[in-house]
């Protein structure tokens, strides 16, 4: 029985992360604590004290699924930029892969799958903490974990593809500041998109994060309609598919010219 090539790449990532687990486990656990305390409790109390709700939800219930999806996005961004440069250029570990029966497409798929898996694990942890904070009123909330992982994959798929076209990390800080951070803040994470100026609303709705936030929030609230869920899923899956087509091509160009 052959192990699928993509799984062999995931195995490597698993082994690397096992050796370096301290950093990211703590960040997966500490980050939700910090965010939920600051936004959900700190800011939430002010809003709740005034007798206000956001989209009919207590602020903790509103912001917890937003943070869940946004944290998965940040994690995806972290995996999709510098670690790709490590593989193509700094340590050339992707070059080691393609000298074996693995091909460049396998390397890409493996990194993408690994990112989704990490986002899944991180989201499960986040959901647990958020539940303890009272941010998850419905048992349907469990579905927010795969939804956040899918959102992470939709973000990582084109970003990993892009990173493999670069010869240096010069543009990466810019992507973080001008791409990831605005998405993080304005995709319906901390406040509804309807609060944005009319001209900006379509931009927010085009972001993959908005779709995963809507999926996550619909799940934790337990009232997401099938039609809306399907629409969000179609968008996210399409972005993954398009990003993957680009990524397999850019890895091929970079690794086996």
């Amino acid at each position, binding site marked *: 029985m052959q192990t699928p090539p993509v799984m062999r790449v995931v*195995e490597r990532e698993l082994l690397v992360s096992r050796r370096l687990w301290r950093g990211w486990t703590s960040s997966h656990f500490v980050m939700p604590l910090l965010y939920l305390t600051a936004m959900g409790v700190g800011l939430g109390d002010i809003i709740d004290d005034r007798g206000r709700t956001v989209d009919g939800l207590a602020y903790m219930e509103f912001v917890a699924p937003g943070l869940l999806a946004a944290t998965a996005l940040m994690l995806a961004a972290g995996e999709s930029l510098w670690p790709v440069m490590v593989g193509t250029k700094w340590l050339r570990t992707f070059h080691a892969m393609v000298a074996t*029966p693995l091909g460049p497409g396998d390397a890409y798929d493996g990194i993408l799958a690994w990112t989704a898996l990490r986002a899944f694990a991180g989201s499960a942890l986040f959901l647990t903490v958020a539940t303890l904070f009272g941010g998850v009123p419905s048992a349907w909330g469990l579905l927010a974990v795969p939804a956040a992982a899918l959102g992470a994959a939709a973000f990582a798929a084109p970003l990993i593809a892009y990173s493999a076209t670069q010869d240096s990390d010069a543009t990466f800080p810019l992507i973080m500041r001008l791409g990831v951070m605005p998405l993080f803040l304005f995709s319906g994470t901390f406040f509804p998109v309807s609060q944005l100026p009319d001209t900006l609303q379509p931009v927010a709705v085009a972001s993959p994060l908005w779709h995963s936030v809507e999926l996550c929030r619909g799940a934790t609230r337990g009232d997401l309609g099938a039609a809306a869920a399907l629409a969000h899923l179609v968008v996210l899956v399409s972005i993954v598919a398009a990003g993957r087509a680009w990524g397999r091509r850019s890895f091929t160009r970079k690794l086996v010219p």
Partner: protein
Amino acid sequence: MDSPLVEGRNLTKRFDSFTAVDGIDFRVERGETFGFLGPNGAGKTSTMRMIGCVSPISGGDLTVLGLDPMTDGAAIRSRLGVVPQEDSLDTELTVWDNMLIYGRYFDLPRAEIRRRATELLDFVQLTERRDDRVDPLSGGMKRRLTIARSLINQPELLLLDEPTTGLDPQARHLLWERLYRLKQDGVTLLLTTHYMDEAEQLCDRLVIMDDGRIVAEGSPRELIAAHATREVVEFRFASEKSRSDALSHLQNTGERVEAHADRILVYTADGDKVASFLAGAGDTAQAASILVRRSTLEDVFLILTGRTLDD
């Protein structure tokens, strides 16, 4: 006759308008050590990458292990060992983890990887470092680890791209000695180098490459016999004046005279005789040093291309 392990016919590699490999023909037989010798930029690495199925050919024909790299790349790579020019180790991980990860790329069972890795680390003398991180290891140790890693799938053909570039002499000799043992064990080695001593030490047969083309082919001994003389006399000079005065005296001695910026080389069958030629010349034509030595592959390259390997 057995079919060759690797065969290139009119093999070509182009990058946009640049031609890196310009229609070369070669065959590598099972069990031999075959070298591509040439200066940087000669097209050695491009050739090696095509053979390693990590670079599609632009023209001509290439078969590796009897298969076509265009259609059977993964199948070929599963039977190759590759030691790339630039290290591609997981430097944050241990020596042992590097072996494990690489073995899993070939989908070998873990128990089998552990068994082979133990033997291979012993073979490259890294057993004591197996639980150490790779990063602080010396360049020679990293190369040896790369070689151990490349053998994890028990390859039929080992590709080594500039295996000792950047290593100190002691590390080079240790590496050569290990490669020599592999050769004795019957592994077919294919290597590129720009060190003529490396080619002479290891290669049964080699081709000399320059500017994307093969300019000569044969065993080291054959190449020297065919293109150089038995001996070379190297005259070195303290000043430009003495060099040019001496050059007029040496002009028609030997079979061939090569004048360089700081020295004059005279190719001849009888070095001692040529070495004494300047004795009768005037004071201004005296050399600072005279060395009589046997011809090497470096001389063959110089005669064929008019340049040295380091150029």
